[in-house]
């Protein structure tokens, strides 16, 4: 029996720009043209003011570690336990779920508020996931 693969996102018309972005090495967010609110996950209107005029821009990729768990069991398909499931806070404000790479998956190494930077993990031709690693310097 083939090993089950990691859950693979299926883009919708409203999120396609985000996944096109990660494929191109960019973390794309949206900003409301009316009230300047920056938000995530993607949608073609501002969840703060309801305005439909919004712009897509490339985020800095700088973030900090907001919170996490280290999952021991059971492991999700495509993962080897223990592994951290993290929520990172982007410099621009929004938070997103992700994984922390190039870092031991331990409470000692994973300190809240540590500085992170985005990295991109290619799943296949269509999907590249945004993940984060400890910031250099």
């Amino acid at each position: 029996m083939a090993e089950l693969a990691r859950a693979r996102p299926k883009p919708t018309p409203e999120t396609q720009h985000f996944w096109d972005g990660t494929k191109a090495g960019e973390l794309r967010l949206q900003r409301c043209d009316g009230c300047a609110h920056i938000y995530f996950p993607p949608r073609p209107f501002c969840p703060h003011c309801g305005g439909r005029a919004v712009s897509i821009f490339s985020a800095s990729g700088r973030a900090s570690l907001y919170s996490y768990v280290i999952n021991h069991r059971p492991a999700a398909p495509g993962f080897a336990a223990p592994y951290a499931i993290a929520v990172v806070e982007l410099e621009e404000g929004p938070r997103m779920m992700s994984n922390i790479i190039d870092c031991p998956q331990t409470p000692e190494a994973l300190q809240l508020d540590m500085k992170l930077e985005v990295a991109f993990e290619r799943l296949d031709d269509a999907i590249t996931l945004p993940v984060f690693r400890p910031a250099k310097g």
Partner: protein
Amino acid sequence: MRKPQVAVVGAAETTRLGIIPDMSQIQLHADAALNALADAGLKLSDIDGIATAVETPQQIAHYLGITPRWVDGTSVGGCSFMLHVRHAAAAIAAGLCSTVLITHAESGKSMIGKLPRSIPADSLQGQFEAPFGVVGPPSMFPIPVLRFMKTFGITHEQLAMVAVVQREWAAKNPRAMMKEPISVDDVLNSRMIAYPFRLLQCCLVTDGGGALILTSAERAKNFPHKPVYVLGAGESVETPMVSQMESFNSSRAFRVAGPAAFAEAGISHSDVDHLMIYDAFAHLPLYGLGDLGFMPYEDTGPFIAAGHTRPGGKLPLNTNGGGLSYMHSGMYGMYALQESVRQMRGIAPAQVPNARISVCHGVGGMFAASGTVIFGNQD
């Protein structure tokens, strides 16, 4: 305090709780419903309103042979039944129906006749949470707690005490799944599930169900049991994505539902004799105590660690043993409501002496939703 308009006149759980491999999920609903009808001295034909979650109201109405003129299928996770109580109270007060049956059941352990829960790959959760290794509630629900601990100085030992104290309550309850006493060391040495939470800080997985019957306060005095009045209730939802909560230091849905219930009931925190806070995991009572305004968040861990919520303490909390030790079929809110009703009737296995007001607070999903119901036994 305002004059109550609606009361619980029937309340029962399934005949058995725990592992029930000889009953499908829908039959567990029926078992609980028939027990609640017997408790209230009513017939199926007396029911003219129906509410349920996960299963559809049409499924339950048909299976039981009920023709309702009021229906509520609100399904927002484990607190759905708190919302049903609130909606039913409003419907009865408005004259939309007279006698509402609320059912819950889940073949959570045996998985008989239970639809699998799955996350579509093109949903927002499927795109922006599932790819990062989430696998069921234990990998998601505790994600906020490390932030809460850092912000408010809460310790691992305090979070272990939640499980220790609830086991003390469960020891008094013959129907509780887990009754053996445990220590803080036992909790902190139990198997790691999702750091920082270990096995004894995660809810049980069992089979079971429960049902409630509500009618007007006016009629309620003519039933076999002492009426349990609905004094106030509140509800809200926030997000199905735990990563997108407004803050990990608090639940917005809790902060909307809890205060709404207190305001409607016209009571203050010092009036509360008995408290249920849905404990799918050990951090939830801390969020509940803070978000419902019982105390500052930084005091919640020390308050539980000092023993104030244990048997004999000044704020008896989760007196059936909770989701951690009593039972947890997947949507535990119904069992919290059942315990509040038992306490208000004065028949709970670990009865709080002279309890007159009970606050029952539920969570749905991973902080996705919330419902609070305040019960009283004085009209």
